[in-house]
């Protein structure tokens, strides 16, 4: 095995007094003193959120203002911390959305349990539940930390729909084709 001896140069007198080094360091710190500050002052300035960010899970409506969720409860089953509670409900027969058949009667997400894993969004067949860019969640009580259905729709809003599945379903129904 070959060794390479690293030559260590003895320090010069100036280096041994440390004074040039200290002055150099003070120059560096002074530069930092007058530099523009890098802090993001949070409540006023918000961080830029990249697409695909997994924030608070929300429910979204389709462009016609209908609930997308059909209360299939897949998200409830897949949720690892069991944060989601859904009470399924029927849609009244006289409603214009009757062909959708089902909608959640209650939909609660407990934000104290949610781990922002995004599995609910992955599993949702209707693309009704989305993790959006809300990241600042706080409340004064445990109850406040449970997002109910109304709150979830407020947070979620409307997202563009790529499939218009129900519109197609209704068109097919009206054309006399009830095979779905």
């Amino acid at each position, binding site marked *: 095995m070959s060794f390479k001896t690293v030559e260590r140069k003895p320090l010069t007198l100036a280096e041994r007094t440390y004074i040039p080094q200290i002055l150099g360091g003070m120059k560096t710190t002074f530069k930092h*003193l007058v530099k523009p500050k890098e802090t993001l002052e949070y409540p006023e300035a918000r961080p830029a959120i990249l697409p695909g960010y997994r924030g608070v899970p929300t429910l979204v409506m389709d462009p016609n203002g209908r609930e997308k969720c059909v209360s299939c409860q897949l998200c409830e089953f897949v949720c690892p911390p069991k944060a989601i509670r859904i009470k399924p409900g029927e849609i009244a027969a006289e409603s214009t959305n009757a062909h959708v058949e089902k909608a959640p009667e209650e939909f609660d997400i407990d934000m104290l349990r949610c781990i922002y894993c995004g599995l609910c969004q992955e599993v949702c067949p209707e693309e009704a539940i989305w993790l959006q860019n809300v990241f600042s969640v706080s409340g004064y009580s445990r109850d406040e930390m449970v997002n109910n259905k109304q709150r979830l729709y407020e947070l979620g809003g409307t997202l563009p729909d790529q499939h218009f599945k129900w519109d197609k379903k209704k068109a097919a129904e009206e054309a006399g084709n009830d095979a779905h």
Partner: protein
Amino acid sequence: MSEFYFSLPLLLRLALQGVAVIAVLFPLAGACSMAERKVSAWIQGRPGPSRAIVPWLAWIPGIGFLQRLGVFHFTADGGKMFLKEDVIPGHVNKFYYYLAPLVAVVPALCTVVFVPFGAYWDAATAMMKPIILANTDIGILAVFAVSSLGVYSLILAGWASNSKYPFLGGVRASAQLISYELSMTLSILPVFLWVNVPGGEGTLSLFAVVEAQTQPGFFGGMWNIFLMPLSAFIFMVALFAETNRQPFDMPESEADLVGGFHTEYGELKWGLFFVAEYAHMFIGSGVFMILFCGGWNPLPWVSLADLLGWLGGFAPIFLNPVVSGLIAIGIFLAKLIFSIFVFMWVRWTLPRFRYDQVMKMGWQKLLPLSIGNLIFYAIAIAIIERS
């Protein structure tokens, strides 16, 4: 107004003067803690404390600037210290535990008595007179004697806390004081050799040092920092060590001693330790400015008397004793504040020394250096004065 003041009994007058000085020094020392937070923040690239404001003050336009400077955090910090729960560890000797912060503040505020912090133009004698609480001839000796008493509070705090880390902090404080006081005193002896001409009346007064730096001529008007840079350097390093500032803050180094001597202290008692530390810094840098940077003289070779004479040409109000005194104090305070800023600046530049390095530097480097410095200047001054 001034006639009424001088008609008061001497004791009352002295008490008033003392209270006035402490009423300035104490808040200044407190404001330093705020400045420390701001300068630290700026050096670290963040805005620092900038939020606190009294709600009804926020209505005044233009006050946002002060808010951004964190001025209101000063009062908020003070209020917090007053209102905090006073936690006393169960295993301490309460008498000594409470005594320690008081012992810290008393010498720190006492040293200011011997430090002149300005001069005024006395028209009757056409001379500059010092603004000082006690114009004694022992000046610097008294400053050193009283300011080194401050270390007793650290030892007392460390011992009374009845806990290992504070105790080690107190022991370190005493060892560090002994090591650095020697080189500090030896480093300023050349200044007094230079000030006290042979055959003249000897003095240790700090005012005489400033007077010596205001003489006409090249050597007369020169600040001592140019004449004796090595003395100034040794004094400054020793000053950092004496005031327990980084990189010499061995008594409280939180990396190895948690918080050192004040680990067991909270609330206002802790605050008193810090006011004492900043008061020490103020007095120490005041002494540094007087000894080496011309005191209240605005520039080297430009004395305060020159400045006042020049200003007096425009308006005679500048030759008024009060106005001239205020100008002198203003110049001196500006220098002090710059010096405090350097303390904070160095804090975020140098890493803390290890304890053995501190001892080695004190005894093996600074002490021989200051003795050599003393011998060199003793011979040089003898030759200059002889010719």
